[in-house]
Structures are given as C-alpha cells and as structure tokens.
C-alpha cells in the first residue's frame, strides 16, 4: 500500500512539474514587433534595443541646435522605415497599437512623448519632393 501511494505521489509531482515547465516555456505572450524595411537596421538589434533612445537624443540635439541633418539616425528615417500599414494600406499613426514603437513600448509599459510633437508616420513622397508645393 505504502509503495503504491508513493508511486501515485511521484506521478502527481512529475505531472505537476511538467505542466509548470510548459507554462514557463511559453511564458507571458511576447509583443508582435513588425519588421522594418530593408536588410538590417542601422545597428545590431541587441544594440538598438538598449540604445535607440540615446541615439535619438544625440541626433535630436545635433539637428535642432546645429542643423546637422544626417539621415542615418534621424527619427524621420526610423518612422519611415518602420512604418506599419493599416487595413486601408496607409501607414498607421501611433494611435494604433500596431505602430512599431507602440508594439514594444506598450509591452514594457514605457510611455514616450515623442509623438506628441513628431509625426508618427511618413508623409507622402510628393510633399518631400515638392517642398510643400503640389
């Protein structure tokens, strides 16, 4: 009897730990981060994840205060490369949870205020070429 009870207990424990392991493996659902255009980002993904804010801040001061307008690290280029198309085939604004920046920032609960001022989606190419003229 004792022996049978031990077997049952062992089985229960084994089953329980198996269930725990599967839950741990799937974990909390990961954010669905849309891919940008092109082959790769301006830096490694690991580096970008940790440092994109520093790069943006550096570039913002260069552009704002000195008028340096290199494109590689500009917010405008990020927004344009990482634009996510909505159901109407136009890029979504930051008001959509599918927006590239939001998809991750919502997940990590970091609130950004960039898009209170900055455009969160690229402008049609006409406006860039024509300089406001159509």
């Amino acid at each position, binding site marked *: 009897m004792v022996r049978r009870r031990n077997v049952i207990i062992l089985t229960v424990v084994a089953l329980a730990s198996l269930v725990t392991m599967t839950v741990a493996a799937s974990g909390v659902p990961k954010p669905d981060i849309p891919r940008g255009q092109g082959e790769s980002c301006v830096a490694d993904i690991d580096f970008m994840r940790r440092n994109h804010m520093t790069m943006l801040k550096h570039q913002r001061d260069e552009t704002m205060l000195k*008028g*340096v307008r290199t494109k590689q690290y500009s917010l405008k280029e990020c*927004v344009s490369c990482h634009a996510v198309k909505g159901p109407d085939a136009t890029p979504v*604004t930051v008001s959509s949870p599918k927006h590239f920046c939001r998809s991750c920032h919502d997940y990590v609960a970091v609130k950004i205020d960039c898009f*209170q001022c*900055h*455009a969160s989606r690229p*402008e049609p190419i006409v406006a860039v*070429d024509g300089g406001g*003229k159509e």
Partner: protein
Amino acid sequence: MTARKRNPGNTTGFDAARRSFLSAAVAAAGVTLAPGVMLYGITRPSAAKARALDAAASSDVRWGMLIDSNRCDSDCNECVTACSKENGLQGHGRPATDAQWIRKVELHDPGTGLNKSLPMMCQHCADPPCVDVCPTGASFKRADGIVLVDKHTCIGCRYCMMACPYKARSFIHEALEDQKSHAPRGKGTVESCTMCVHRIDDGRQPACVEACNDSGGGAMLFGDLNDPDSEISQRVAKYASQQIRADLGLDPGIRYQNL
C-alpha cells in the same frame, strides 16, 4: 566668407564640382519648382545654398529677409497661406490663441492717409530678447542667425512671448495630430517662424518668400546678409531699408523697405 570668395561670380568663376552640383540640383528641382524659382536658383546661388547634410550651420552666414512694402498688396495673403500649409498650422477658429507664425499688418497714417501693408513674423534678431529671458535655454539662436525654440526643453512658461516686441510667438493650447515631419509641434510649447529652417538646410527658400514670388508679388527677398555678393546684401547696401523698432537695438534679420 573665404569659401565664398573662391567661387565669386555666377558664370566663369565656377569650379566644375560646383557647376555639376548646381545643375544636378536644378535637374532635380526642375520637375516641381516653378520656372521663375529655378532661374533664381541658377543666377543667385547664394540665395539658396544647400549645406552638406553633416555640416553644422555656420556663423559665416546670416540669413535675413528684405521686404518691400511698396510691392506688398493689402489684399494678398499668399505668404500667410503658404506658411500655414508648409508647417501644418491649423486654426481652431479662435484668432486670439490660434498659432500664427506670420501675419499681415496694415499701417495707416492718419496725417497723410497713407496705407501700407506688410508681413510680420519673427524678426530673427541678432540679440533676441526671447533668448535672454528663457529660463531653460529652449529659446535659442542658431549659428546662422535663425531664432528657434527647442521644444524638447521648452516648458511652456511663455516668458519669451512676453519679451518679444514683435508678438511673433504663439503657444500651442491643444493637442495636435498629424504634424508635418519637418515641423514638429506639440501642446504646451511655444513656437514661432523658423524661417523654414528645414528648407534653408535643404538649400531652398522659405515658403512665404517662394509664395510671394510665385504669386507675382515679389515683395520678399531672402538671402545671406553676410555675403556681400548676395542680392539682399547688395539691395540693402544700395537702397534705404529699416528694421522695425530699431531703437531697441536688437538688430533684426528682417528688414523693410519703403515703409
């Protein structure tokens, strides 16, 4: 200045690189710009000179405007419309608080009955009082004389609005959406005419000047006041022009003719 002297005139003095750059620029701009503007770009390269993307604005340049009030029609509002369109300024039907980067001012002399009309915007002072009073350093003057607000550091206190003798600045009261990517604007910050700094950095003229010339007004001239060869420098050297409230000693970069 020295760099400019290496490329003096606009015909024989060009080196090959500059010539090819200009023709490339004209070819690129030819599709979208009006013929008059293209011609202007070729004959007056100093009026619109693109810096390299990685080059910082330099104090060798001082951007300015010359406005001829004789050629400014009181019925014309092209500069204001062009500014709003270029920078994505939308009104809320509340003239007292709606953002206004440029406005038309009507002058009337009751003694003689003389009426004058002129555009008024940030005068891009050499000694801007808005910069003096800003507690955070958000209001600043760029090396090339353009006075701007760094909205990243602006706390919306509006001291600069009080200090500006030209009433050039506006405060944004409402949350905004879908701003232009070249003109970020947001609630709780102060803003004013940027002299279309994004266009200047791109070698183009401010939207108001372009609209004024395109509409046949020709009242506004934009250029480098530090370059003795630029049209604006030659015009201010030849004809009398004045700064508004010159008595304040702020040395505005916007000058007016025939007031």
